[in-house]
């Protein structure tokens, strides 16, 4: 009798921990699905609106599908549609040189990322693989720069670039961030310190110079972190808004972020061309989304990696 009383209670207690996590798993999956939906919905809404006729869309704002499907918004944003056609579809009729902004963004992001990663690699090599007096001291000075956020240096840097006569030029936009990045140097140095010196010593016996070792041995071994910094740097530069806003006053070198903001502000307040605006945001987002399709896994790993440094 005692055995009979014990057995059922034991089976329930054994079953319980198995069932509870399963319910928990269901809730967890529902949460994850909601997060993914909330994340993706604005992208879908961008696409849906960008493929709509602006007038029809205003009449039917809750339709989940494009209203009066048309490529018009993309065409007018890219300047491939006549003004009459654009106005007929609810466009403002104003032209946006979006391809020009796009090209500026490509130049700005590519040049500044390439420069900063290259110069950071050189410095990191000197701080990790070379022995010289003052190494730790200079490094700690560099590291202190991590403490100073952009807020303090932005205005004086603007004044400097203005005094150098570099406003409205790629040089002025790129220069302040092209040479020195405390984070990049720290990140690469940490990795290079961990490299084995055996290959270098063998190369040294073969009579290789230090510079050849940097480009022939250390650089290839550091390619992972270098690519990480390149990807994250490029994404950051592509999104940069504040600095280009300060140092440009016309369209000549303005990147896409600025162009888009100008486009949004110039859209009539009474009846904005939302379809055109969404098409423009998609054009702006597209290069990054393509980058993501190619390097998706790498980007995800890079972000986690950068947090752990």
């Amino acid at each position, binding site marked *: 009798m005692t055995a009979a009383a014990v057995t059922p209670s034991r089976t329930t207690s054994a079953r319980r921990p198995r069932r509870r996590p399963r319910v928990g798993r269901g809730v967890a999956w529902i949460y994850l699905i909601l997060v993914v939906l909330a994340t993706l919905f*604005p992208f879908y809404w961008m696409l849906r609106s960008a493929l709509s006729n602006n007038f029809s869309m205003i009449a039917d704002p809750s339709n989940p599908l494009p209203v009066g499907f048309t490529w018009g918004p993309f065409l007018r944003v890219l300047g491939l549609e006549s003004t009459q056609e654009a106005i007929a579809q609810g466009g403002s009729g104003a032209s946006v040189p979006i391809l020009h902004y796009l090209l500026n963004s490509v130049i700005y992001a590519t040049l500044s990322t390439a420069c900063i990663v290259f110069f950071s690699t050189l410095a990191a090599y000197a701080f990790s693989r070379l022995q010289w007096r003052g190494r730790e001291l200079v490094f700690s000075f560099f590291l202190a720069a991590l403490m100073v956020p952009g807020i303090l240096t932005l205005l004086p840097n603007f004044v400097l670039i203005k005094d150098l006569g570099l406003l409205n030029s790629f040089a002025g936009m790129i220069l302040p961030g092209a040479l020195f990045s405390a984070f990049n140097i720290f990140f690469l140095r940490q990795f290079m310190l961990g490299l084995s010196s055996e290959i270098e010593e063998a190369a040294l016996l073969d009579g290789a110079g230090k510079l050849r070792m940097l480009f022939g041995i250390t650089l290839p071994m550091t390619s992972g972190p270098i690519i990480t910094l390149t990807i994250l740097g490029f994404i950051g530069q592509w999104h940069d808004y504040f600095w280009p806003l300060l140092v440009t006053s016309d369209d000549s070198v303005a990147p896409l972020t600025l162009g888009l903001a100008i486009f949004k502000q110039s859209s009539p307040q009474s009846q904005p061309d939302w379809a055109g605006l969404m098409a423009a945001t998609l054009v702006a987002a597209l290069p990054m989304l393509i980058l993501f399709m190619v390097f998706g896994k790498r980007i995800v790993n890079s972000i986690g*990696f950068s947090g752990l440094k």
Partner: protein
Amino acid sequence: MTLSTAAPAANAAAPLRAPRRPRRPGNALAPSHRGDGRLAWILIAPAAIGFLAFAVYPTLRGIYLSFTDYRLLSSPTFIGVQNFVDMVQDSTFWSSLLVTVYFVILAVALTLAFSLLTAAILHRVTKSTVLRGLIILPFLISGVVAATVWSWMLDPQLGIVNVLIEHLGASPVKFLTSREWAIPSLAVISVWKNLGYTSIIIFAGLQTIPPTIYEAGRLDGASEAKMFFRLTLPLLRPILALVVVLNVIGAFQVFDIVSVATKGGPANASLVLQMYIYQKAFGQFDFGYASAMSLALFLILIVITFVQMRLLRANESDNA
């Protein structure tokens, strides 16, 4: 070379200071580093120039300009602490500081809570890279794009959010154009944009926790919730400290989404400090006053970062 998840662990283990090289007898190590000094200075020269010209010099100049009257067209004149006296008496400065703090608290608290939950669930339920890839998508668009899309979705009359609210029988909300909703709406945009990014960083931190700890916890009969608070959170503290500090610093300097979505309005209800600094410098060309506010914001950030590091004891790990 692929970035394996094992790499960060090995990397994190690398000491901050360079390890002293073991001196092997008979191996001429010193000569192998002969001439390193000159090469080192050549290699760090570009970075050193950038450091001096675009970090040290502007920092010092920024501090100096804070004590001047500088209208950009004429050269700066020293006026002592007048800018700071003006600042204390400037009600717009205080209201914009308040608005900024309100935004920071909302945005960081929500981002952190949801990121932690998302990362913890991802960690326990699935290691799917596809899922992590999907939630990171907002990180790949600029603040300008995010703010534009959300301006459309939150439009008072035609935005999908308000259309749905009206379908539910409620009256539409002026999300970006009313005093009470402007900052919460901007915080939501910011959370949407940063959630995936922050989750991935926390997720990476979770992956460094050895799974055997959870097995031990399960054997002791600990529930998932208990394991989260007793095991996961303490082990995650160094990463969380970093994430909090980075998020707070970023949120304090928010500019692009505000600039595009509300322009600081309505009636300065979302005029964050960075926006006010920009207006002073480039709207009224009062560079001295704008520099003084930048310096104030910088000092606030230093204090907050320091306090956070102390509170979260970021340098210590319960791992040991």
